[in-house]
């Protein structure tokens, strides 16, 4: 288990006074202090870790957020920002002496401008909520994490979330124009704007993926894009992971960037097929789902090219969808992958390393060996175009030894990712989960440099202080 910093006794002792003070800043139902109502905030998508906070505040305006931040800053109280709490790395995990600022009540869409191709939304608007608000005009917000129904744009900004279509459209960082935020000292500032490039230091870029450590985001200006005329998927199954990897290389090498390029290994194919009956080939060692966009004629042309490339790699099966329904059937299994694994094993850890795509066969082989060694099953889904690997490690939560083994197995996979030239996290963030592995990827002086930048924003280390960086350097 990953340790949390000890709570400050003087803060715990002042709990009632703090809650009373917060109630004057955020009136009505905006402050939660009683134990049962704090319970839903004790964890996030990394549910093995739980810690109820001191209190939860649910502001409805940027000014209220600023008032709470000024109060907490003035009184040395730690703060944990929270969106929907779907973080898989424990990014929204509270501390016993911290106030959680939840952004879910800030859920208004403030502006939509199709000609300028932007939308201004509050931090608590869900990812899918943005697309829903613009799709009647054929537009969409591009980054599409699988959690898009629930996760909020403020959380997406702070995790720099990706999705299945980021090979073509980029991750959150590539789809933002500006932010309104409250600094750790309680000042309201705007960074970026409603235009493309802002002269001066790129605060927008630095804030993106900063995991709630540099400020509280209250408003986000996103780019919205006109959708393609249509999209269609194909499925290609191969006799070996190496062969499938070579096919991916050949597709990219031919100059085609599919809008999605997903890879599943044998255990994952089996789990998904049992769950979704999508018609996946059970004798395949590896399977690709490839999606292209454009008019029907363009789709035909691109899929024919890709099919021709895949045919050179001795495929077990090649299935090109001829309709939207067939595309959906192909995606059905992949989209339900987490749920499918959940049926085999109710408890699993979803890992998130990135590797150079050429290392895939080696990495999968090593993961297979580790699986035997730890005695835990693993299924792999992989955003093959960009090297983002999601091994799902299955364990038994009722058995502490099984959970410990799963954590160790996961850490070994991430170390392997770094060893082959990749990184600890491609889209889920470091949070608490990977905090103590940061030294695997960074030298001490490199971590010190990053921490110094955190200090520049938050001199007292009050904002999400227990995330991302190993605890030993946490100022007391």
């Amino acid at each position: 288990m990953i340790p949390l910093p000890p709570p400050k006794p003087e803060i715990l002792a002042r709990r009632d006074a703090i809650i009373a003070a917060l109630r004057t800043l955020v009136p009505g139902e905006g402050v939660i202090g009683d134990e049962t109502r704090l319970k839903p905030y004790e964890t996030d998508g990394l549910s093995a870790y739980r810690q109820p906070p001191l209190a939860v505040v649910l502001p409805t305006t940027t000014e209220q957020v600023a008032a709470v931040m000024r109060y907490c800053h003035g009184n040395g109280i730690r703060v944990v920002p929270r969106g929907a709490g779907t973080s898989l790395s424990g990014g929204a995990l509270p501390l016993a002496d911290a106030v959680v600022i939840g952004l879910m009540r800030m859920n208004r869409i403030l502006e939509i401008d199709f000609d300028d191709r932007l939308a201004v939304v509050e931090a608590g608007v869900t990812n899918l909520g943005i697309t829903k608000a613009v799709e009647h005009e054929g537009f969409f917000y591009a980054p599409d994490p699988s959690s898009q129904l629930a996760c909020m744009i403020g959380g997406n900004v702070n995790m720099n979330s990706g999705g299945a279509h980021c090979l073509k459209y980029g991750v959150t960082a590539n789809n933002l124009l500006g932010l309104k935020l409250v600094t750790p000292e309680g000042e309201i500032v705007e960074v970026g704007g409603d235009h493309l490039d802002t002269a001066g230091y790129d605060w927008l870029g630095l804030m993106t993926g900063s995991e709630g450590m540099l400020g509280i985001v209250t408003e986000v200006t996103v780019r919205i894009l006109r959708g393609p005329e249509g999209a269609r998927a194909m499925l290609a199954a191969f006799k070996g992971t190496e062969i499938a990897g070579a096919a991916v290389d050949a597709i990219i090498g031919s100059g085609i960037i599919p809008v999605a390029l997903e890879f599943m290994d044998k255990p994952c194919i089996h789990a998904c097929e049992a769950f979704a009956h999508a018609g996946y080939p059970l004798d395949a060692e590896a399977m690709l789902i490839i999606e292209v966009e454009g008019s029907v004629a363009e789709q035909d042309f691109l899929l024919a090219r890709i099919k021709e490339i895949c045919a050179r790699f001795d495929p077990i099966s090649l299935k090109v969808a001829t309709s939207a329904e067939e595309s959906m059937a192909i995606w059905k299994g992949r989209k339900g992958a987490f749920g499918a694994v959940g049926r085999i094993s109710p408890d699993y850890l979803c890992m998130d390393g990135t590797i150079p795509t050429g290392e895939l066969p080696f990495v999968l082989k090593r993961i297979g060996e580790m699986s035997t060694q730890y005695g835990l099953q693993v299924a792999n889904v992989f955003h093959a175009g960009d090297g983002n690997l999601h091994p799902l490690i299955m364990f038994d939560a009722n058995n502490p030894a099984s959970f410990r083994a799963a954590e160790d197995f996961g850490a070994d996979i991430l170390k392997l990712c770094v060893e082959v030239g990749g990184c600890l996290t491609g889209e889920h963030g470091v949070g608490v989960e990977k905090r103590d592995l940061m030294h695997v990827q960074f030298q001490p002086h490199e971590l010190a440099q990053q921490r110094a930048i955190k200090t520049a924003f938050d001199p007292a280390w009050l904002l999400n202080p227990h995330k991302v960086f190993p605890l030993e350097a946490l100022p007391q």
Partner: protein
Amino acid sequence: MNAPDTEAGIVDAVLAAREPLAIEGNGSKRGLLRPVQAAETLSTRNLSGITLYKPTEMVLSARAGTPLPEIEATLAERGQMLAPEPPDTHALFGVRQPATIGGIVATNLSGPRRINAGSIRDHLLGIRFVNGRGEVVRSGGRVLKNVTGLDLCKLLAGSHGTLGVLTEITMKVLPATEATATLKVAVPDIATGIRALSAGLTSPYGITGAALLPMGPTALLRLEDFAESVTYRAARLREDLARFGEVSMVEAPESRLLWRSIRDADPINGGPDHAIWRLSIRPSAAPALVAALQEAFAARLLLDWGGGLVWVAGPATEEAHQAVLAATIAARGSYTLFRAPEPLRAAVAVIPPEAPALAAIAARVKAALDPAGLFNPGRMRAGQ
């Protein structure tokens, strides 16, 4: 000038420095922003060479001083490109040397394709740099998706050498497009031109360039893709755009030359005594901004990025600068005094001032990376 040919040499130079250093690549953009007051120059021009290129992984690494043309030629051999299309500004600045990849990242300069493919910083995967303590720091890496720790790549990109000396750059590279064509729309006025560009950019046809030449005025929309797609989309767009004015088609290679000149801002380059500003605004604010500038002085203008990027050339005077500033503030945009004789650059704010709360953070971030204030003092803002 000190121009070491190894990263260790850069580290030594930083450790030995007692006075501020001017940081440069080839000095092709020395005329950019505010003049730096520094006794010595530290250049990365000899830190040259491509260190990693994996076409199928869409990644290329090069030492910071590698000339951009060398990188572009290497990519072209494998049918790839730097998608943001960085400008070649040597005509604009009247210098011979090509830009270096370090200089391009340090200035975060992107060309016409930025509207569709993103900016230089969007394609920056990893950096190595030497901070003011003489430490070599890495951020990002060589993989396409990476959210491990704070993203110092974004912070260093566009920081104009004020936060660290970049020694190695890793970029995402993309397949070069097979075919291209440009649709030219003869529009009656700027506002109609912007609407024509918006119509293209809100179509499903993946426009990769959307510029407006005020002479005419002419709206230009570029398509790039496989030949079949370009043919099909050009036909559809022609119909859609006809309501804005007469549409004609420019085929490759004329289209390529046209976009090269837009990329490099050739149409506004009127000679070294003129000042050049580069403004970033919301496209719908462009017509009012253009009108205000044309009223203020004899402005030469070029609009790119669907109207979101405005190049302005005019007299190198404080009055003209104030007019640009006022028009940009009215448009809620951002500006850079891109080129000007030194007295003007030293006298005015070459980029917009920051709100006090951000300026305080900026000063602390600068101190966190360069505690002794060695790198490019005063380059971006007086005292920054």
